[in-house]
């Protein structure tokens, strides 16, 4: 009885939290389809206006939105893919090889993520300048891989450690090669970890502002940077800005939606004992 009451309370709390997060998003979504006059009205208008797509079309005509969106769609998935592949390999090595101090090494790798981005942005600038990769897609991919890897390695390693080594030994005895074991046994079981790492890396790079702001100027500019250009010294272009925010949000929602089904728990259930 008491337990059920607590559960109810928890449900209410969860709803409140979700509402708290969704409200601003809803407002922005609303703003993005309001005529400019309604946006700027002194008392907020929530209904009764004629929805318009003018801000969206303005985005594409005035702010080169399709080019910028393409930049994001190029840089972010590429960086995410590379991060996840490399992270899985190195996490496997750190989890399985008889390495002295593997725990410490993992923590050390993770500690790179504790670094404030500001600390490395200048070195990155100089490095990219040296190899002529400033304001390039490849340069941004490299930077995001470097910054995204540590956390992904640490995360996936944790998931790998949960897989009993006997499973791989059994597969070895079953005559599977190393590659087959990875493909048929390890990867399916570490899927939730890879899913989490993918989401984290994708969301981080998709929204990343500091590096993009410092290391791109025109050719490889990404969404967050372009968005900031809609706020200038004289005005905030609320209409296009809201529309841009909504468009920036959609791919992330899609990615999370498609990947979250892989984030199932208890995948190794029944493996041992």
């Amino acid at each position, binding site marked *: 009885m008491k337990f059920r009451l607590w559960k109810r309370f928890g449900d209410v709390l969860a709803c409140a939290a979700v509402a708290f997060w969704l409200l601003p998003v809803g407002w922005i979504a609303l703003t993005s389809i309001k005529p400019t006059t309604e946006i700027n009205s002194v008392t907020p208008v929530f209904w009764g206006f004629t929805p318009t797509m003018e801000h969206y079309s303005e985005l594409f005509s005035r702010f080169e939105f399709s080019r910028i969106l393409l930049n994001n769609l190029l840089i972010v998935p590429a960086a995410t893919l590379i991060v996840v592949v490399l992270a899985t390999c190195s996490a496997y090595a750190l989890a399985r090889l008889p390495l002295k101090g593997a725990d410490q090494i993992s923590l050390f790798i993770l500690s790179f993520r504790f670094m404030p981005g500001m600390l490395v942005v200048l070195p990155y600038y100089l490095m990219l300048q040296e190899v002529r990769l400033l304001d390039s897609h490849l340069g941004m991919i490299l930077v995001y891989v470097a910054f995204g890897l540590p956390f992904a390695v640490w995360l996936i390693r944790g998931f790998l450690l949960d897989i009993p080594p*006997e*499973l791989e*030994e*059994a597969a*070895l005895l079953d005559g599977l090669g190393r590659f087959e074991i990875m493909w048929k046994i390890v990867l399916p079981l570490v899927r939730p970890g890879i899913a989490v790492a993918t989401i984290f890396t994708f969301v981080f790079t998709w929204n990343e502002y500091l590096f993009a702001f410092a290391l791109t100027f025109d050719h490889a500019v990404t969404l967050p940077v372009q968005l900031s250009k809609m706020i200038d010294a004289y005005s905030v272009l609320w209409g296009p800005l809201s529309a841009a925010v909504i468009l920036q949000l959609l791919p992330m929602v899609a990615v999370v939606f498609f990947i979250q089904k892989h984030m199932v728990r208890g995948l190794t*259930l*029944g493996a*041992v004992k």
Partner: protein
Amino acid sequence: MGVLLSGLKKRYRDGTDAVHHLDLDIASGEFFSLLGPSGCGKTTTLRMIAGLEEPTAGTIHINGREVTRMDPGDRDVAMVFQSYALYPHMTVRQNLALNLQAQRVARQEIEIRLSEVAHLLGIERLLQKKPGQLSGGQRQRVALGRAIIRRPAVFLMDEPLSNLDLKLREQMRTELKRLHQKLGITTVYVTHDQVEALTLSDRIAVMGAGEVQQVGSPTEVYECPANLFVAQFIGSPGINLLNATPSEGGLSIGPWPLPELQVTPPQREVVIGIRPEDIILSEPKGGTLRGSVELLEPVGSSIFVFVRLEKGEGVAQGNDRVVVGLSARQPIVVGEQVGLILRTERIRVFDPAGPALQASEWSIREHRFA
């Protein structure tokens, strides 16, 4: 033929010696157990045969073929893990078939073998389920099936029954024996459970401290333990060990003389081992030893009587008690004074340092009856 281990040694990277020097010749078709306490090197030995650990020295032959440096998958051995190690993301069918697929066995052949094994183990209905949906006993069967379906040269089993509850364990034990009789495949079985080893095995290697202490049939290791370690490890409750010291007219156990026993050289200390079932209770005056009943442990068909020896301090090794096994439910009460008659033809004599005395080193002069 079978499995031949010669001079096998394993030292881990941290310097611990898991296996010192191992020579074993396991015959083809034999059910062979490695029995010993935890940390005795039995699992390491099994893992070396499987190819999961590389020996520091020595060689391994399976059916006459040297496999010492071969990959596990090429050795034609199947292993049943203590934890079963079923692939959790695959159905039972996929679990069973994975090896055959890896060996590129034709699909039709796989189907035939699948139904054979499923029938043999009674798991036909589980084929579409995943390990997480199975009970402990069912998982155990699938793990066995995964080994059997391969028709390997050798089965390796690492405490396969230890995760089951008692009833199920006894049931599976019988089943294992039945399977082995039916399939006749060489089996190396690791266990710390002497009952499993004694009931299942053709031969047992009792291991302790990284070495083989004795190899023999279950009867041999029970009746004629090669040293104190084996004597103590086999049997439940354990063998009684009594310190015998030289005195005038022969050896005596504490204050009680034991003139029947002759050892050479005559003036040496020995340890006498006698199993609980080889001691007979008598009137206090009629026995070789005397004491009072301290504790009774009925176990159904028999009852174990713990007797504290009077004036017997330091006589019995361990806890100064002698355990007597009575087959019938004899009327006996705690506190009763009793005499103990040792069936002298059944005693074993050991050097205090460990090894059993050679037949030439001791003899029993005559039987004394109460």
